[in-house]
C-alpha cells in the first residue's frame, strides 16, 4: 500500500515542478547539504540520490524528499529536485528528478540509482542519468551519462568518508562548440564525536576549475532542532541553516551568502514512511 501511495505522490510531484528554475547538475541538493557549505559526498540522506548515491545504501526506510533552491535571488537561477528511496532486499533503489531554468532555457535530469551496503560500514552506489537541455526556439538535446560513489566508515558511527564522481567518461554536450558536461570529483569526511555533533569537510574538483574546499558543522541542539553552519573557500561562500525534525517529516532551510553575488535561499522537505519490513 505505502509503496503505491508513494509512487503516486512522487510522480505527481515530478510533473508539478514549476518552470521558473535554472541551475546546474552539480549543485548540492537538499538544504542540509547547502547549510553545511554544499557538502555532498559524506552525507547519507534521501538527497544522496542526487549527491552521492552510496549514501542511500545505508537508508532503511521508504523516503521521499523535495528540494528547492534559488541562487542569488535571480529568478532564472532556481533549482528544483525530487528524490525517492526504496530499500529492498537486494539493495536500495533511488529515483531523482531535477529541473532548473525557465521556458527559454532549461536543464532537466532523471536519474535511476542503485546502492548496496556491505555490512554497516561500506556502501557503493551507481546512477544512470538521462539529461535534457532545451533552448526555446533553438532546439533541445538529450544525453545519457552516469555517476558513482562510495561511502565507508573509517571509525564505525564516528567517521564517515565519501567519494563521488560525476560524468567519469567526460561526455561532451556539443562536439562543434566543445561544450563539455562537467566532470566533477568530490571527497569528503564526516566526523561525529557524538550523536549531537557532526563536523564535515570536503574537497571538490571540477576538471576545468580550481579545487573548492568546504567545511561545515551540524549541531543537534535538542532532539527536534539542528543548527548548521559552513562555508566554501575558493570562491568564498558562507552558509547557515536549521533542520526541524518532526515525527516523519524533516524540514530543512538554509541560506548561502556570497560576498559579491548575495544570498541563495534553500528549502527542502523529507518524509520518511514508517519503517517497512
Amino acid at each position, binding site marked *: 500500500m505505502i509503496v503505491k501511495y508513494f509512487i503516486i505522490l512522487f510522480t505527481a510531484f515530478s510533473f508539478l515542478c514549476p518552470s521558473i528554475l535554472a541551475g546546474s547538475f552539480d549543485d548540492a541538493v537538499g538544504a542540509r547539504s547547502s547549510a553545511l557549505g554544499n557538502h555532498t559526498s559524506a552525507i547519507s540522506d534521501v538527497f544522496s540520490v542526487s549527491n552521492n548515491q552510496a549514501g542511500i545504501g545505508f537508508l532503511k526506510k521508504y523516503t521521499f524528499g523535495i528540494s528547492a533552491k534559488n541562487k542569488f535571488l535571480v529568478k532564472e537561477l532556481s533549482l528544483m529536485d525530487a528524490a525517492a528511496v526504496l530499500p529492498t532486499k537486494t539493495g536500495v533503489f533511488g529515483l531523482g528528478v531535477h529541473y532548473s531554468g525557465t521556458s527559454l532555457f532549461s536543464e532537466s535530469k532523471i536519474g535511476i540509482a542503485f546502492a548496496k551496503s556491505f555490512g554497516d560500514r561500506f556502501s557503493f552506489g551507481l546512477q544512470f542519468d538521462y539529461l535534457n537541455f532545451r533552448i526555446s526556439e533553438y532546439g533541445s538535446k538529450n544525453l545519457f551519462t552516469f555517476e558513482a560513489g562510495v561511502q565507508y566508515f573509517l571509525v564505525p558511527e564516528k*567517521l564517515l568518508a565519501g567519494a563521488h564522481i560525476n560524468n567519469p567518461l567526460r561526455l561532451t554536450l556539443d562536439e562543434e562548440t566543445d561544450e563539455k558536461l562537467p566532470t566533477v570529483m568530490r571527497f569528503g569526511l564526516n*566526523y561525529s*564525536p*557524538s550523536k*549531537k*555533533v557532526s*563536523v564535515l569537510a570536503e574537497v571538490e574538483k571540477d576538471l576545468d576549475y580550481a579545487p573548492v574546499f568546504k*567545511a561545515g*558543522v551540524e*549541531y543537534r541542539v535538542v532532539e527536534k532542532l539542528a543548527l548548521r*553552519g559552513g*562555508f566554501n*573557500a575558493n570562491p*568564498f561562500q*558562507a552558509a547557515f541553516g536549521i533542520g526541524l525534525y518532526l515525527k516523519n517529516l524533516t524540514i530543512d532551510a538554509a541560506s548561502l551568502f556570497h*560576498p559579491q553575488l548575495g544570498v541563495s535561499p534553500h528549502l527542502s522537505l523529507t518524509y520518511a514512511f514508517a519503517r517497512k519490513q
Partner: protein
Amino acid sequence: MRLRENNKATSEASLRLRRKAQRGNPKFKDLLLLDLPLCILPKRGNDLRSLLLYLLFLFILPYISLAQERKQKPSIEEIRDDITQILETVSEETDAAFNLDAFLEQLVDLYQKPMNLNRASYEDLTNLRLLSPEQADAVVRHREQFGNFISIYELQAVEYMDVDAITRMLPFVTVRSDIDDYQIQSIKQLLFEGDFELYLRYSQILEEQDGYVPLDSGETGTRYAGNPSRFYTRFRYNFPNKLSYGFTAEKDAGEEFFHDTQPRGYDFYSGHLFVRNASIFKSIAVGDFEAKFGQGLIMWSGFGFGKSPFVTNIKKSSEALKPYTSVDENNFLRGIGTTIEAGNFEITGFFSQDRKDANIELLVDTLEDDFISQATSLQESGLHRTESELEDKDAAKQLITGGHIKFQKRASHLALTATHTRLDFPLGANTSPYNQFQFSGDRLTNFGMDYALLIKNFYFFGEVALRNNWSVAMLYGFIASLDPKVDISVAYRYYQKDYFSFFANPFGESRNPFNEQGIYAGISLKPFKKIQLDTYIDYFKFPWLRYQVDAPSNGIDFLAQLTWKPTKKIELYGRYKNETKQENEPGNTSKLDVLADVNKQNIRFNARYKVSESITLENRFEYVIFNDGEKENGYLIFQDITYSALGFPLSVSARFALFDTKSYDSRVYAYEDDVLYSYSIPGFYNKGTRFYLVLSYKATRNIDLWLRFAQAYVSNQVTIGSGLDEIDGNVRNEIRGQVRFKF
C-alpha cells in the same frame, strides 16, 4: 547534566556525579575501573562536603602522576609556548611592534603567587586565557553550589573541565581557605611584606650604525644625538591583589642620556600606584594605567589578541583597569582612574592627560591672514634620536575622560561605555582619497554598549560603538563547546569607514576598527586524546580605499594547524596558513592603478622534544610562498637547545637558524628567547644565519642575572639594516644584560 540541588540525598548525588563524569569526559574512564564502594559512602543527611571529599579521594588516584608534576611546577614554558605562537601570528599580521611585557609579567606574577581558586572571580579565571569562558563559569558555579574548593583536585568534578585545562592552569592556581588569604594585619605588612623588584637592563648593537658615524666636515645629514646603548630600569613593589607601585624608565639606542636634549636622563619615564580591593573600590589607579572595556571598539589600551592558532580565543575579556609598567611610550593612559563595585554593578571612571608625539605644522589661513597650527599625524615609535624626532616629542596634548558601567552576573554582563577625547592641536584634515574619512579635528566622543551572555554551552558576546558623527562599529560573535571534542567560534564585524577611536583595538584584520567588514569562523577538534586540529577562515572586505590600495578590496585568510603530542615529552605541530589580499598591482606604469591579488602561504613544521628533565630540543622548518604576480619563496630552519635543571643555578638557551628568502616580501618570523620580560620576534629575509645564546644565572636568593648574545649574518648583502640603522658589513652582533634584585 548538572547537580542542581544541594540537598539531594548524597548517594543519589554521587551517582549523578559519577554519571556526569563518565559521560562528560573520556578522562574519567579510568574511574570506571575503581568502582565506588557504595557501602562506605557517607550516610544520608551528611553534608555534600564529606561526599565530595570522598569522591576526591577516588579522583586523585589516577592522578598521582599529575600531583608529582605539580611539585616540580611544570614550568611556565608550556604557557609561554602558547603565547609565542599567538605572538608570531600577530607579528605576521600587523608587522608592528607591540608590547607584551605586561602580559608576560602578569603570567610570571601569577606563577610565583598562584591565584586562589576560592577567591578568583570569573574575570580572574579567564584573564590569562587559561580557561575557556564556560570552564571559568563552571568553576564559579561549582563554588557557589558546593562551597569553597577543598583541594585542587576537585577541579576534575567541575563541568566542562578537561585534563588539558587542568594541567594548563595547575601552575597558576592554588586552594586556600579565605582566612589566610591576603588578610592584612597592619599597614606595615601591606607596605613592606610584598615583593620589591628592581630590574636593570643594558643592551647594545656592537657594530657601528650609520647614525653614529660622525659627519665629515662639510658633509650634511642626520645623526643620532646619543650613543647606541639602551638602558632600562624598572622598580616595582607588589602586594598581590592589594597594592602595587613602581616606575619604569627607558633610554632607546640613539637617544641622549642626562645630556643636552635629555636633561631628565631617561627619555621615557612611567610610574604607577595601583590599589586593589579597598572596601568598595575594586581598583584605584594613579599615574600610568591601562583601560580595557568590552570588545575594544572604544577603549583597549595595550595588547589585544586577534586571529591566532588558538582559533576559539576571539572574545576579549579583562579587568577594566590595570597598572601600566611597560615601555610602549604611547599606548597607555596617564592620570587617575577607579572602579567601584556595588553588588552586581561595576562602575569605572578615569581621566587621562598625556602628551603624545606628533608632527605639528603651521598653515596659513588665507581668510583671516593668520597662522593655524595643526598636527599632521601622531607618532607611535617612541624613538627620539634625531632632531626631527625630538621636535615631535610630546608635541600634542591628549585629554581623555571616560566611564564604563557594567552589570555583571558571573560570565554574563551588559555594559555601557563613553569616552571623550580632546587634543590641543587639531589633527589635520586628510587630503588623500584613501584617508579622507579618517578622523580629523580636536574633539572626539565615543559611546557604546557591550554584552556577554552565557547560555548553556554557547557564549555570546558583542559590542556596538558610535562616534559623534554617528558612524558605527560593531562586533558580534559566539564561542561554543559543542562536545568535549569540538569547540567552535564565529564572529562578524562591521566597522564603518569613518568610525574612529584612539585606543580601539578590537578583533579584525586591521588594528583600528574602520573601513572593514568581515566574518570569521573557527573550529578546534580533538578527535583523539593526543591530536588536535585547529582551523579558522576569515573573509573580509574593505569598502573604502586603503593605503596603497586604490579601490575597495577584499581578502581571505585561512589557517589550519595539526598538533600531535604522542607523549608528554614530545610535541609536534604542522601549520598551513594562506592569506590573500588585494593591493595596487606592482610594476603598473599606467596612470590608473588596478588591484592585484597578493597571496602569502606559510607552511611550518615544528617539533619539541624533552630529551631529559633538564634538556629540551626544538626544531622548526618554515616555508613561505609569496605571490603578487611574481612568485617567490623563503625558508627558515632552526635548532634550539635549552638546558634548565632544578637545583642548578645556571640555565642556557641557544638557537642556530638558517634563512634564505628572495626578498623582504617572503620574510619569515620566529619568536626568540630573551632575558626575562624582554622579547623579540624578528622577521628574517635575504640569505644568512642567526645565532643567539641566553644565559640565566641565579646568583643568590635575591639576585638573578641574564646575559644574551645574538648574531645575524647575511651572505648575499654587503650591508645590514636601512637608513640610519645601516651597518656597513654583513654581521650584526647584539648583547644584552639584565640583573634583577628581589627582596
